[in-house]
């Protein structure tokens, strides 16, 4: 069945073709055909993925890699790229939740977009196109096809952010997303070119993962670092990290299901996926990993700080996403690739749920406000409140997601976030500071999320007069996905219960085959001098005897390392408990603060804002980063372009051309007088000529 992997991307693209080409007609006949096609396509992809997934699980761990070449893509000379897919634990994991969560959000969209007239088919076409791109991204067996998905999802993001394009702000937000991502892609593609040509120098002309990763040792450390950093530039745009995160908050202009699917659960995590996929490459460059970890940690803190004061419900969630992505990169950067991926998974559940919940709230608010013809902002939390009783399902599910993201023990976010924080502290690439930043950001997260819950669902309703009685729960197509996701957000974490809590971290085990450094990582963890020495010795053997020796080394050292690892594990167990306790405590403090400020003594926020106006405005205006970019990049570039056009093109180049033409014209004008047809003027010329000649000869004779 593995050779049927192409079925996964083909269903959504068929959906695109049908709805894209005939959608307008179908919509006129019966709107529901459109969403049946779109949801059905994704459901089929999901089913195929499930089948393949379980088939793969049936195989022994070391055989879980299957590559399927569909057709030849861009080739010429030594360049050979294919549209080819790969089935392995990582790609299957991504594909499962992309199609799974994607399906739920498709279903949810039926309810959310029901009032959309005439453009309903477009929405589902774009969503399907997104699924196609995202599936290509995660299933690709080479970097170029990954890049196709990578830019493809960016394109869909652009189209969907600007879905309601009649508002200028939405159109601008879409464009901003695309351009920012293009800047990142610039780094990405240069990284690819560098990787391709530097491996090519060793005769390995390939972009295929399995080939690249078995040959990365040929790269010099400097080149490896450069490649990793360039690829990371791509991630900072796609996964919204400092300094290219600026597009994501604006992307909230799109319909809420889009925010949930693209800007929370799937697309924005593709940077994390890419680095996890390239973990062997990144492990070659501790420097690049340090950069990834640092940027991740800083982003986590920075975005959380902005989230503290935002009033738009989706904006809070957007900054929260940026912040959570920062955690994932922090995990990757300290070498905890599996932990990073684990957070991708749990985040997909609870963040999709948060967005869909927010969407349900907005949907309800819209409805209520529409009824009384009010133009109050339906997304501003200051107009909400007391929705707990109006939208009970939304409230309960939302609360579960909030508990998960805040890292309350037992919920999914707790396990993944804690794994990252623990690794940030304990891993050889980690540092106490990184842990501290992460822990502080976790406290902020708990605060702003509960602030959001309290402002939205608690207290009295602040909606305009008369709107309140029209607020009600959303339709079934919206609440059922909420419930499914709530279940996943609650229990998803048990996939990877760490050893410290009596689990076996099955998630990490599962991903081990793709992480390529299983034994080596265990060695690091053991940290013992003996193991280190043995490792060095083994490495020498590895170098000398080659691959056969390597296999022996891996098998032998694996056991040794595992034993050492277990010994070390018990010693550090205490530290792990301690840190876990601290981070939970910090989260509880955050919740308590939110409770005090937004339930008990609701005048505190205003007082705080008044006593620290500078800080408040700085945060409210998102540290003025957009303004900074506008001033330092966009304006100068525009000015320079105008200068080139008016100055160089029109004035200089055309000036010269027209000048030459004018001189020739003038010269011809002068010459014209010579041939005027008047006998007199000819006579004058003859006389003048004679005189000139005479003078010439006379001078000559004299000298």
């Amino acid at each position, binding site marked *: 069945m593995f050779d049927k992997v192409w079925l996964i991307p083909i269903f959504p693209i068929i959906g695109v073709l049908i709805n894209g080409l005939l959608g307008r007609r179908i919509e006129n006949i019966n709107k529901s055909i459109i969403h049946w096609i779109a949801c059905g396509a994704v459901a089929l992809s999901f089913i195929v993925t499930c089948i393949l997934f379980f088939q793969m699980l049936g195989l022994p761990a070391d055989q879980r890699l299957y590559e399927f070449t569909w*057709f030849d893509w*861009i*080739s010429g000379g030594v360049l050979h790229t294919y549209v080819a897919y790969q089935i392995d634990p990582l790609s299957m994991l991504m594909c499962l939740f992309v199609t799974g969560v994607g399906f739920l959000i498709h279903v949810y969209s039926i309810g959310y977009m029901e009032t959309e007239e005439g453009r309903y088919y477009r929405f589902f076409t774009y969503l399907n196109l997104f699924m196609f791109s995202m599936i290509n991204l995660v299933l690709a067996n080479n970097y170029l096809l990954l890049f196709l998905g990578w*830019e493809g999802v960016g394109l869909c993001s652009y189209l969907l952010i600007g879905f309601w394009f009649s508002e200028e702000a939405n159109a601008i937000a879409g464009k901003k997303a695309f351009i920012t991502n*293009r800047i990142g892609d610039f780094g990405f593609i240069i990284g690819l*070119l560098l990787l391709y040509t530097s491996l090519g120098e060793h005769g390995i002309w390939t972009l295929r993962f399995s080939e690249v990763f078995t040959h990365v040792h040929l790269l010099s450390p400097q080149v490896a670092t450069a490649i990793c950093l360039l690829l990371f530039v791509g991630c900072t745009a796609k996964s919204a990290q400092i300094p290219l995160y600026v597009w994501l908050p604006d992307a909230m202009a799109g319909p809420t299901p889009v925010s949930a699917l693209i800007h929370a659960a799937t697309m924005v995590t593709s940077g994390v996926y890419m680095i996890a996929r390239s973990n062997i490459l990144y492990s070659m460059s501790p420097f690049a990993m340090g950069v990834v970890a640092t940027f991740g940690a800083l982003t986590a803190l920075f975005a959380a700080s902005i989230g503290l004061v935002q009033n738009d419900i989706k904006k809070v969630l957007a900054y929260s996403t940026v912040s959570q992505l920062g955690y994932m990169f922090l995990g990757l950067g300290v070498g905890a690739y599996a932990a990073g991926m684990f957070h991708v998974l749990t985040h997909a559940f609870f963040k999709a749920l948060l967005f869909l919940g927010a969407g349900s709230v907005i949907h309800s608010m819209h409805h209520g406000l529409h009824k009384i013809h009010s133009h109050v902002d339906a997304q501003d939390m200051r107009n909400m409140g007391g929705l707990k009783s109006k939208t009970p399902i939304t409230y309960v599910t939302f609360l579960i997601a909030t508990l998960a993201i805040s890292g309350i023990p037992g919920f999914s976010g707790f396990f993944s976030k804690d794994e990252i924080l623990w690794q940030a502290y304990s891993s050889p690439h980690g540092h106490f500071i990184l842990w501290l930043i992460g822990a502080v950001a976790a406290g902020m997260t708990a605060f702003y999320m509960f602030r959001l819950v309290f402002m939205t669902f608690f207290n009295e309703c602040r909606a305009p007069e008369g709107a309140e009685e029209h607020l009600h729960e959303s339709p079934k197509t919206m609440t059922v996905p909420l419930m499914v996701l709530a279940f996943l957000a609650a229990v998803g974490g048990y996939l990877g219960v760490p050893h410290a809590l009596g689990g076996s971290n099955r998630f990490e085990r599962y991903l081990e085959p793709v992480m390529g450094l299983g034994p080596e990582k265990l060695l690091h963890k053991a940290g013992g001098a003996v193991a280190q020495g043995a490792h060095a010795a083994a490495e020498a053997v590895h170098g000398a005897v080659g691959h056969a020796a390597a296999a022996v080394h891996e098998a032998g050292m694996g056991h040794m390392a595992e034993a050492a690892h277990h010994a070390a594990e018990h010693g550090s167990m205490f530290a792990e408990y301690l840190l876990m306790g601290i981070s939970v405590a910090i989260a509880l403090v955050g919740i308590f603060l939110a409770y005090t400020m937004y339930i008990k003594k609701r005048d505190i926020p205003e007082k705080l804002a008044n006593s620290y106006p500078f800080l408040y405005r700085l945060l409210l205006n998102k540290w003025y980063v957009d303004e900074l970019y506008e001033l330092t990049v966009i304006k100068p570039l525009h000015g320079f372009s105008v200068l080139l056009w008016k100055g160089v093109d029109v004035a200089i180049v055309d000036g010269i051309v027209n000048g030459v033409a004018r001189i020739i014209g003038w010269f011809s004008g002068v010459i014209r007088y010579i041939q005027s047809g008047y006998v007199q003027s000819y006579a004058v010329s003859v006389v003048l000529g004679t005189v000139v000649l005479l003078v010439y000869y006379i001078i000559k004779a004299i000298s």
Partner: protein
Amino acid sequence: MNQLNFPIISLVTFFPIFGVLILLMIDKESEDVLRGTAVAFSVIEFFLSLPLIFYFNDATHQMQFVELIPWIKSFGINYYLGIDGISLWLVILTTFLTPICVLCSWTYIQKYVKEYMICLLLLETAMLGALVSLDMILFYVFWELMLIPMYLLIGVWGGKERIYAAVKFFIYTAAGSVFMLLSIIFLYYYNYKVTGVYTFSILELYKLNIPVSVQFWLCLAFFVSFAIKVPMFPLHTWLPDAHVQAPTAGSVILAGVLLKMGTYGFLRFAMPLFPYATHQFMPVIATLAVIGIVYGALVAMVQPDMKKLVAYSSVSHLGYVMLGLFALNMQGVEGGIYQMLNHGISTGALFLIVGMIYERRHTRMIKDFGGIAKVMPVFATFFMIATLSSVAVPGTNGFVGEFMILVGAFRSFPIFAVVAASGAILGALYMLWMYQRVMFCPLDKPENEKLKDLNAREIITLLPLAVLVFVMGFFPGLFLRKMDATVSYFLKDFNTRYEAYAQQQQPTIGDRIAAVMQIKDNKNITVE
């Protein structure tokens, strides 16, 4: 005589002339008959050219479907035609774009319809002739012949400042051709001096061993001529004027095929004839190409006129083509050729799109639009596809060309490739910005509220281009595999001959000047 035993190239080349003859017989007043006839001929012409693809043997680098008939024996001028992997797709592109051009002029052109259609068909023959000629004089005749219909298209059916634009176009290109002609004649005499045979055959002249010092000047002459045509920075300023003033079909042909004559010229003449000099020029050309990419993109960004924006984007795109060709490796050259085709399709489509909106609103100023997607959804879709192709989103044809060029360039000159790649950011910037201002935002101009969406004819015009964007984006092998043999031979031959030349001593500036003197002496001797 060739694999079909049939002069198929002649048929394809001159079939439009047959159409011209028929058009001449039709009454001036019956305009729809004229239009229909032109469409019919151009469509049949396209189908006639298809056997060239099917019977093309992609295993050989040799010229195919060759026709060789002595023309002016005493001068060694032959009627010598042939197609290889380099020219094949350009020929198809020409026959493919012409019917589209005729179709898009259906209502756009209201005066002198008969003459207009004749001009278009005449132009098609001239372009095809230039692409298939293997004799320098024959090539030169077609090359110059292209100028006249194009000059008329701009000068007669153009916009307000058509005369200025037409003259500028004509003078620029004609000035370039003069240098080329001088160079051709020199080669001819030089060949006679060395081999004792009078010939203008390109394939024969490839074999010449031209002194390194002379090569520089000959190559320069060809370069200038082709660089104007491409156009390369800083010889590009005729292009925006010509595009803006030309009628839609003129712009499509100009962007789609005429500009490719420049890049094709580099591949067919300048590079293989003068490998050593080409090598010397490599850094200069690559620099100019990269400047063109960034410069064209930046200037495009601030254009208030949609058509001018697309025109400047051409400068940027053709910069990619040149960068690819001069990377002088498989990926670069194949990517460059592929990008020529892409540019014909994406920029062709963009010009059609601008033309369609102009026909409705009689303005091309970006600020006059806004929110058009609401009233013209089908138009918006086509516009989006063309935009995506132009900004080289993976999955479209543009990406294939751009990626191959970047790979090729990165192998030859990494820094240039990096700068060129930044052009992709700027490309997205100006295209999406235009799209946003024209198609998105509120529909706030009352004139735009009643705009009609595309009619069936317009959809038929754009549909083939839109389909090709994706076919070429996902299955580039269909096109690239036919080029492989030719391009790899081209590079192998180029390199062996370059190596041979490189054995000879490197000339100094003094040598070059001396060489010029030598040229004059040689000429005198041979003429005598």
